[in-house]
């Protein structure tokens, strides 16, 4: 089966400092994988390489078998690569619904249309609204994003990504900065993501990772240390040393 997403020998250095060192990684369609690693392991760099915010020094990135290594960000999104950000990256002054409509319009290729009122594309607004209802944000649809509690803003991040109907979804620390009372809502949304989307979650929260992921990749100093099922990772001595151990000290 063609992987939904694959990297082959992916490398990136900032000057002499390697931040991605020969990463071979693949995500099968419908996957539920997690990427973990201590601070500075290169997790976000890896995401930025895949999405095209950074250009790799060497290696290849394949999306559904197609080489996207040199493709601009927009092209990757059009081919089904969605992401959320570790720090909310939203249209804060706009309403929740408008945030999602923006993504839905872009996905349907209507966003460049300048000779019709946005309101005449009723279907796009309805699609965005039904997405919000699915994430239980329907009642907040007209609130400006900046007035939402942080936990709900994290859900808007996910709603925008889902508005793009991705085949691969990268969740960069979806529960970051959310008070523990609200993480449960985010977890349940993530668990209910459509089964045909390949999901890669980058996360610090071990409880979330072990509950969600079928397979875990551990990244240390820009390189893959080990890959395996949650049970294998939990039992791995090296992982305990570099990751869990560090957590005990920190």
């Amino acid at each position, binding site marked *: 089966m063609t992987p939904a997403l694959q990297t082959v020998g992916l490398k990136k250095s900032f000057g002499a400092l390697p931040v991605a060192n020969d990463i071979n990684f693949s995500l099968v369609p419908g996957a539920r994988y997690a990427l973990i690693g201590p601070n500075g392991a290169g997790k976000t760099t890896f995401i930025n390489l895949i999405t095209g915010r950074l250009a790799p020094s060497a290696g290849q990135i394949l999306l559904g078998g197609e080489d996207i290594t040199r493709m601009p960000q927009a092209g990757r999104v059009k081919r089904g690569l969605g992401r959320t950000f570790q720090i909310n990256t939203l249209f804060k002054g706009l309403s929740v619904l408008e945030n999602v409509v923006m993504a839905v319009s872009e996905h349907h290729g209507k966003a460049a249309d300048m000779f019709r009122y946005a309101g005449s594309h009723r279907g796009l607004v*309805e699609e965005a*609204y039904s997405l919000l209802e699915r994430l239980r944000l329907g009642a907040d649809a007209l609130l400006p994003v900046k007035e939402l509690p942080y936990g709900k803003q994290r859900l808007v991040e996910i709603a925008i990504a889902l508005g793009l109907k991705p085949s691969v979804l990268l969740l960069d620390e979806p529960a970051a900065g959310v008070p523990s009372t609200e993480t449960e809502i985010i977890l349940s949304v993530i668990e209910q993501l459509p089964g045909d989307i390949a999901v890669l979650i980058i996360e610090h929260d071990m409880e979330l990772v072990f509950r969600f992921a079928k397979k875990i990749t551990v990244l240390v100093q820009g390189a893959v240390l080990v890959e395996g099922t949650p049970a294998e990772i939990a039992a791995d001595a090296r992982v305990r040393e570099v990751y869990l151990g560090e957590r005990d000290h920190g």
Partner: protein
Amino acid sequence: MFRPDPSSPISPTEQLVRRHRLHPLELLPWLAVIGTYFLLPGYLPLGSQVLIMILFALSLDLILGYAGIITLGHAAFFGVGAYTAGIYAIHVTGEPLSGLVVATVAAGIIGLISGLIILRTHGLTLLMLTLAIVFLIQETANKAGFITGGADGLQGISMQQIFGQFRFDMFGRTAYVYSAIVLFLVWLFARLLVHSPFGRSLTGIRENITRMHAIGTPVRRRLVTIYAISAALAGLAGALLTQTTQFVGLSVLSFERSGEIVIMLVLGGIGRLYGAFIGAAVFMIAKDELAKADPVFWYFWIGMLLVLVVMFARGGILGLIDQALSWVRRKS
């Protein structure tokens, strides 16, 4: 300005779908335009100037207010339109409508080319480049005296009748109506544009460019497109000035004019279409009145007004009106 109302019984979807519907208040500027014609016939020449500056400010609002492109060089396009209209009238034909089209297209092309070059940058670099463009074009016009008239300006422009019917009269009636109709058509277009999906995506770029990249927006293409459109409309304003005054001087391309138009827009309120109307009108009328009282010192008062607006009314005059209205609503 669209303000979604979570407490309204109208469904969220419906509120968004209806947002472009015309609000009665949007007709107010047009009542003022018509009223001026009938009630203040002595002020029509000033009126035309105001209408032209509104058009110029409106073109700026599309890039500055909606797309968030900060520029101090917008007079470059105004000037290209003004000179093109003048040169066209002298060397090709004095027929005004084709002159408008040619000038608009010329300014749009210059906007497209310069946009492709400078919109790779942002922030201070972009601001400096917009300045550089206006200086480059002004100096070119200065040096190319054989066609532009150089520092003396372009003289001997004579316009034919519009549709072979309406002569530009000495009372400025034709000029006023002509400018008003052009402004009205541009307003219709600009209003459609900002309420279109394209216009919404410009707001998205202004609000969060990183997010727009992440939803697959070809950000630079959108920015270059609106920059070219805005430049074309600025050129149209410049062409109107040439045709209604039958003269072009280097001042149309000046840094001062670039700065003034930003002041007008900030004064009125950016990113709301009608800030251009109120800002340009207040500025031009204040300038006229103040300059009558003291032809040298008037800029002081404009400066004062700007300081007050920037410090106490960040949304400009329209923002102030907004605040007053919502205060009244809360009280009642």
